[in-house]
């Protein structure tokens, strides 16, 4: 189980982006993950508050969007949905396919609270 380590890596990236934009806090974090990424969303959700305590992302809403598993067939060229343990072409049944999506683990976007510039004197 490596979800806590993943949360720590997530927070390092979130803090770097927040600092780059002079944000005071982070209100929303959008993660995209595929079923083949090896990440369990509910475990990540449980680990997140532990890792985020005391950081600018402490109160952030963590949103996780699952990417579909999709494959493209090398034999017939059709792109189709698949399930994690059966990555074969839905059209012709061939297993010579390439994964199009479903193994990603991405910090997709952040919503930051950025204080307005102080009014000029």
């Amino acid at each position, binding site marked *: 189980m490596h979800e806590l380590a993943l949360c720590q890596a997530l927070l390092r990236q979130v803090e770097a982006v927040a600092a780059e934009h002079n944000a005071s806090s982070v209100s929303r974090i959008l993660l*995209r993950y595929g079923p083949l990424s090896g990440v369990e969303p509910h475990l990540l959700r449980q680990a997140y508050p532990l890792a985020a305590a005391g950081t600018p992302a402490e109160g952030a809403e963590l949103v996780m969007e699952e990417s579909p598993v999709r494959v493209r067939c090398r034999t017939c060229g059709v792109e189709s949905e698949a399930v994690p343990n059966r990555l074969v072409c839905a059209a012709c049944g061939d297993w010579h396919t390439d994964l199009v999506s479903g193994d990603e683990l991405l910090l997709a976007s952040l919503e930051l609270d950025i204080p307005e510039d102080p009014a000029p004197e």
Partner: protein
Amino acid sequence: MCDTCGCNITPGNRHLIIGEGKLARTEDGRTAVSVLQGLLSENDHQAAHNREHFDRRGILALNLMSSPGAGKTRLLEATIDALKGELGIAVIEGDLETENDAERVRARGVPAIQIATGSACHLDAHMVHDALHHLPLEGVDIVFIENVGNLVCPASFDLGHHRNVILLSVVEGDDKPAKYPVMFRAADLMLITKTDLLPFLDDFEPAAAERHLRALACEAPVLQLSASKGPGMEEWLGWLRGEAAAQRERATRGESLRPSVAPDAHGHDHDHAHHHAHP
């Protein structure tokens, strides 16, 4: 995984980064920032460094993965004995506790570093990097990284190796690839081990194990062997000789190789061959 060339952008996530550009101010004054970074990027950065370390010396690094008890250490012992005087071998061992496996390997006369992970269920690139500081690599052709026995987490971490070798022992059930798709999809070679026990088992069909592997769109060759009794070892040793020679040739051309399915590589099976500047 690559942070700069855009290979982590897929048809599934492209809509997040086109259109509004990097910054889009929302109505309530918050700022949405699209980031799109692989969350394992720190690990992957270290892994790339490890891989350069191996490549500079023309060393082939193999990640051995399986459930506990599939016979990884036994296979290493038999392999070391068979290749003695032909190929230089060093071993990095990962277990939660004990030096037992490293001691077994050292007893065969090759250097071995034990990483005791405590309660961590996998090795990561930083642990391998630390181990490399203590592993003499002069005269070494192949570094085996024996990952923690676990069919779940080890598949998620690039260690800086070149090939994934996954062992499936015949006492485990031939549907393991269907049950643990994240792990078996990453195989560059699947070894069916302990085949000397097949006559005593009525629920393991090597052909069924291979069918389950192919259903994961995995083209890895499948070899059957018994490290204790010998059958099948020659094919495995032949694969090792071929891979070690290919790695030496790549090294002379300044090229590298990633496992065919690396964590977070998003199905882009390109070779990631690139040149390193060496002094």
